[in-house]
């Protein structure tokens, strides 16, 4: 059956949006740079200071970023600085890109609109009547048009300058012109079937609206190539050349890498879009061929020999990908295979994956765009592409005689590979390291794409087995939404955790945090803490994401519902899956018991440590136990299932998970009664509150993660099975799907419904109950902000460069808030001095309240100064922080010494001696504070000095 929808529409939309957004970003770079150059040229005589330190880059420098050091050190330096977000937010947003894009869009629109007229003028086309005095050609064309049922009435024209027996179609929305080559008119009198094949092919293009797609896409692409990408590559390429030709700057190392990556990304994007566009157009050609054949064109006309092509086969294959038209052998092959036009090619999926990641990367830069919006946009487009392609493919192959179900794994893996490459290229635009320190984490993208792809394919297969169209449509919508959220979950995981791990950011946060926050003897558990730190990097990114939790639950509930509503219940057997899930539950109890045995053997001697240290370790190993049991169950179910392996694995995992939670609750509620499995409690008692607390902490971290992790494990298991079968030479085909002849039996439907409630309800309840809690009682935000930062590794550079870098950082620190905060502190110090030295007039009393308020104001301004970035120059910061702390303490002591404000005016201070000591402390610290400030200002002054001399 020939479908009007081949799944390429979402891909086209993805491509157009990518081109527009990437064009906006490129234009912003070009126009902003040109504007700043122009401004600098115009005001060369006025300031000459380092303007570029006053923008977002200056914020980074002020926060401690150093472009010449590695990514890991930089991330560690700026991670968790709330002031940085604030500083960035205060920078004016650039609208150059948006304005330029609007102009280019208008240009592209005008091109699209005027192109048909321009073509008419450029080519001397003649009417059909000119070459057809007897009207046979006109009659034939009318007949063919009527045969196809194409509603739009095209304009028929003849191009007398083209002697080939071909035709083309062009135009704009609703107004199309079919241009027959004069050679084709001649062919009509000789070989009418050949003539019809060509005309029907062109009418098929009209029917499928290919004219709009092709010409709008081409107009947009060419406008952006000429207006945005070429200027971008020229401008930044010339900057790169300047850098390579011997520019001396401490920014050189990082800047060179960044510029190189940005140029590479631009070129990669251009190649990507061209390849994707060519692929789309080729696919549309295949569709038009198939449509023409369906309308009665003789397929023998597609059996033609291509011109012999020379060259290396690999190169030929690559150049074939660049062409917008397939060659004859490809066309013939496509026409011979019924489902060819909806076939999912590896390049198609690869390019789509890369395009999705590129869009996510470039859309972040757009002004006034929340990251959530760009993520939703990207994920919805990527999910539409995946769902549309896999869905159409599955619909085509649903009733194939061999009953083979396409899992979608290959398509998903290619999509993931595209995302992987896209991430590597786009991630490089922000990295100063040439190579990713831990690139193996990028393999996560294979799972990020393949799991939703397989889940969608298998669910859709079930959805198509439902009885009514309404049910099918509803199920498809729910499945598509869940697929999108699963994809989003993967990308979110990467963004919040994977990316940092890949960049090798090695900050042992949690072990240090626990050691500091929970007093006790942690020495026996150092290995456990290391494992916990690593594990938490994987588990924490998604545990607070409510949509992910909902999707994880839906991942098992939706297929369960679909299986229970099947037209042919016998086709999907659930019992075995549930039995495997229950077995997994038993396994989980075994693993949990083993964990408790080990913990019992290793528990600390003191009661205090058992109450403080052990619970944290106990929760962690419970999490590991649940994850292991779920993973093993998922792999086992996958290996043993032949159809719907992922869905079965997820359902079984859900059963295992729920069993494990029940076991966990019982074991920890009965802690003290379990003999060799007792951990924290010695007295035997039923303590449901303890069990619930422990279980809820485990649930919070494992509810989405166990499902998603098990899905990844199932995919790995399926891969292993596939490889084993390939090695052994087994066929993976399945027996034909039974015809829908029997009706559902009431007993089976009721049984499945009951199971759904039993399994589904607890999962939903758990989702709602555990969502607002914190894992392991962690609130690391405050700790993250104030934790000690590792010293940056010294990088080899000349003293001159080092001095310049220091001056840049000092300037940025002062400019982005340093000066403002120190000015406030200085003013408050002056006020204090005035208040202390002011002699009361005769008859007046000393204003103690005023003094207290001044001290309080000073304390506040010093606190604000401490909350701002530390000085990025480590030697200065070492002197700076103690002086600030001393002054703050002095201000606090001053307030305390004057006394707490009561109902009336304060008559005398509480302790004059304390007040004197506090003031002395403030004054002596203020002198050191001033000295540090002067020295920072001197270093920063070097920046302006150097900028002027350069």
């Amino acid at each position, binding site marked *: 059956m020939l479908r009007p929808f081949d799944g390429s529409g979402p891909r086209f939309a993805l491509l157009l949006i990518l081109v527009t957004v990437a064009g906006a970003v490129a234009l912003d770079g070009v126009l902003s740079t040109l504007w700043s150059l122009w401004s600098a040229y115009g005001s060369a005589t006025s300031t000459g200071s380092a303007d570029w330190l006053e923008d977002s880059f200056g914020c980074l420098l002020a926060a401690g970023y150093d472009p010449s050091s590695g990514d890991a050190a930089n991330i560690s330096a700026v991670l968790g600085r709330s002031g940085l977000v604030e500083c960035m937010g205060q920078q004016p947003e650039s609208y150059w890109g948006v304005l330029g894009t609007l102009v280019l869009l208008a240009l592209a629109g005008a091109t699209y609109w005027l192109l048909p007229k321009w073509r008419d003028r450029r080519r*001397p086309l*003649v009417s059909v009547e*000119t*070459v*057809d*005095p007897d009207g046979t*050609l006109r009659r034939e064309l009318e007949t063919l048009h009527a045969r196809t049922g194409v509603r739009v009435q095209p304009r028929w024209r*003849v191009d*007398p*300058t*083209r*002697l*080939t*027996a*071909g*035709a*083309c*179609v*062009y135009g704009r929305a609703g107004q199309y012109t079919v241009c027959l*080559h*004069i*050679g*084709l*008119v*001649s*062919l009509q*009198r*000789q070989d009418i079937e*050949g003539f019809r094949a*060509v005309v029907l*092919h*062109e009418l098929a*293009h009209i029917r499928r609206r*290919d*004219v709009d797609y*092709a*010409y709008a896409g*081409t107009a947009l692409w060419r406008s952006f190539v000429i207006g945005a990408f070429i200027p971008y590559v020229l401008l930044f390429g010339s900057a790169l050349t300047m850098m390579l030709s011997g520019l001396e700057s401490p920014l050189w190392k990082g800047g060179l890498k960044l510029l190189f990556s940005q140029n590479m990304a631009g070129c990669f994007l251009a190649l990507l879009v061209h390849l994707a566009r060519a692929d789309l*157009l080729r696919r549309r*050609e295949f569709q*038009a061929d198939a449509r023409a054949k369906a309308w009665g064109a003789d397929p023998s*006309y597609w059996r*033609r020999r291509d011109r012999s092509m020379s060259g290396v086969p690999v190169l030929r294959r690559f150049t074939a990908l660049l062409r*917008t*038209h397939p060659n004859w052998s490809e066309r013939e092959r496509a026409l011979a295979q019924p489902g060819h036009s909806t076939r999912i090619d590896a390049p198609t999926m690869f390019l789509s994956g890369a395009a999705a990641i590129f869009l996510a990367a470039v859309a972040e830069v757009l002004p006034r765009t929340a990251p959530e919006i760009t993520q939703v946009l990207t994920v919805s487009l990527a999910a539409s592409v995946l769902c549309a392609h896999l869905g159409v493919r599955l619909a085509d192959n649903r009733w194939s005689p061999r009953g083979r179900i396409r899992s979608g794994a290959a398509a998903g893996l290619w999509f993931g590979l595209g995302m992987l490459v896209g991430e590597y290229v786009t991630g490089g635009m922000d990295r100063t390291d040439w190579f990713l320190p831990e690139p193996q984490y990028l393999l996560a993208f294979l799972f990020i794409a393949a799991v939703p792809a397989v889940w969608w394919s298998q669910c859709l297969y079930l959805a198509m087995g439902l009885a009514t169209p309404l049910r099918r449509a509803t199920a498809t919508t729910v499945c598509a939404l869940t697929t999108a959220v699963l994809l989003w979950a993967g990308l979110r995981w990467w963004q919040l955790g994977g990316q940092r791990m890949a960049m090798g950011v090695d900050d042992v946060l949690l072990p240090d945090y626990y050691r500091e926050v929970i007093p006790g003897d942690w020495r026996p558990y150092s290995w456990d803490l290391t494992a916990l730190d690593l594990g938490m990097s994987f588990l924490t990114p998604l545990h607070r994401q409510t949509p992910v939790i909902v999707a994880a639950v839906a991942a098992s509930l939706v297929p369960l519902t679909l299986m229970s509503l099947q037209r042919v219940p016998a086709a999907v057997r659930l019992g075995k899956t549930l039995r495997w899930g229950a077995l997994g539950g038993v396994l989980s109890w075994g693993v949990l018991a083993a964990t408790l045995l080990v913990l019992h053997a290793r528990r600390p001697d003191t009661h205090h440590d058992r109450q403080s240290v052990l619970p944290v370790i106990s929760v962690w190993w419970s999490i590991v136990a649940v994850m292991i049991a779920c993973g093993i169950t998922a792999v086992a179910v996958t290996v043993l299932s032949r159809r719907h392996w992922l869905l079965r694995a997820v359902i079984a995992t859900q059963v295992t998970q729920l069993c494990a939670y029940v076991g966990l609750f019982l074991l920890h509620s009965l802690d003290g009664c379990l003999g060799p499995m007792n951990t924290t409690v010695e007295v035997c008692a039923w303590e449901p509150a303890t069990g619930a607390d422990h279980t809820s902490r485990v649930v919070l971290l494992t509810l989405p993660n166990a499902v998603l992790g098990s899905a990844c494990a199932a995919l790995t298991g399926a891969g292993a099975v596939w490889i084993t079968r390939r090695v052994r030479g087994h066929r993976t085909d399945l027996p034909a799907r039974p015809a829908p002849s029997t009706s559902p039996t009431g007993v089976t439907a009721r049984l499945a419904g009951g199971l759904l409630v039993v399994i589904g309800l607890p999962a939903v309840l758990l989702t709602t109950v555990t969502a607002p809690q914190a894992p392991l009682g962690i609130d690391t935000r405050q700790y993250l902000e104030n934790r000690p930062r590792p010293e940056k590794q010294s990088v080899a550079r000349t003293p001159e460069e080092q001095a310049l870098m220091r001056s840049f950082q000092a300037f940025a620190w002062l400019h982005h808030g340093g000066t403002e905060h120190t000015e406030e502190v200085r003013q408050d110090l002056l006020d204090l001095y005035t208040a202390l030295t002011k002699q009361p007039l005769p008859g007046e009393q000393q204003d103690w309240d005023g003094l207290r308020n001044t001290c309080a104001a000073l304390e506040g301004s010093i606190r604000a100064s401490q909350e701002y970035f530390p000085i990025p120059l480590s030697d200065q910061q070492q002197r700076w922080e103690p002086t600030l702390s001393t002054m703050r303490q002095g201000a606090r002591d001053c307030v305390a010494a004057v006394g707490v404000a009561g109902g009336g005016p304060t008559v005398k201070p509480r302790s004059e001696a304390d007040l004197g000591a506090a003031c002395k402390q403030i004054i002596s610290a203020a002198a050191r504070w001033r000295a540090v400030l002067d020295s920072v200002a001197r270093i920063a002054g070097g920046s302006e000095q150097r900028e002027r001399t350069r």
Partner: protein
Amino acid sequence: MALYVREVVREVVETSAPHEVPVLDGLHGFSDGEALRVLHRTKQKREPLGFGFAEAGALVTAIVWVILDQAVRHAVDRTSETVITRGSERFRRLLRRGPAQDPHLPMVVLEPDELAMVRSQILERAVERGMHQADAEALADSVVARIVTAQPPQNPPSRDTAE
């Protein structure tokens, strides 16, 4: 009334390859130079949504018109009175411009050796482009026959001799 080359071509095409008549109809508004450029063109630009077969739909037209045009221009050169006229004609041709006044090339009288040359060239080109030998010969003969019938007798008998 002058007979043009394109008229001779049309008559030949009407008899030898009637399906190619639309090509001539299409080229009706073109000057000879433009038409020949179209017929000469070998490389065709690809259209975004173009589809079709590479076979040229104007085989006979292209062969006959191109060769006849060359032969007639050669004859014109031969009969040109001065070197300057000849030079200016060649220069004009170099610039791909048509004849000074008439965009259509009129037929001139061809010598027997030129006729023979036309015949052999048509035969050769037609076979080269995939035509059967017999068809090619028939085409070449029909062209020559049409030229001969179109041109006035070469050596009209003088009145004295007639008398």
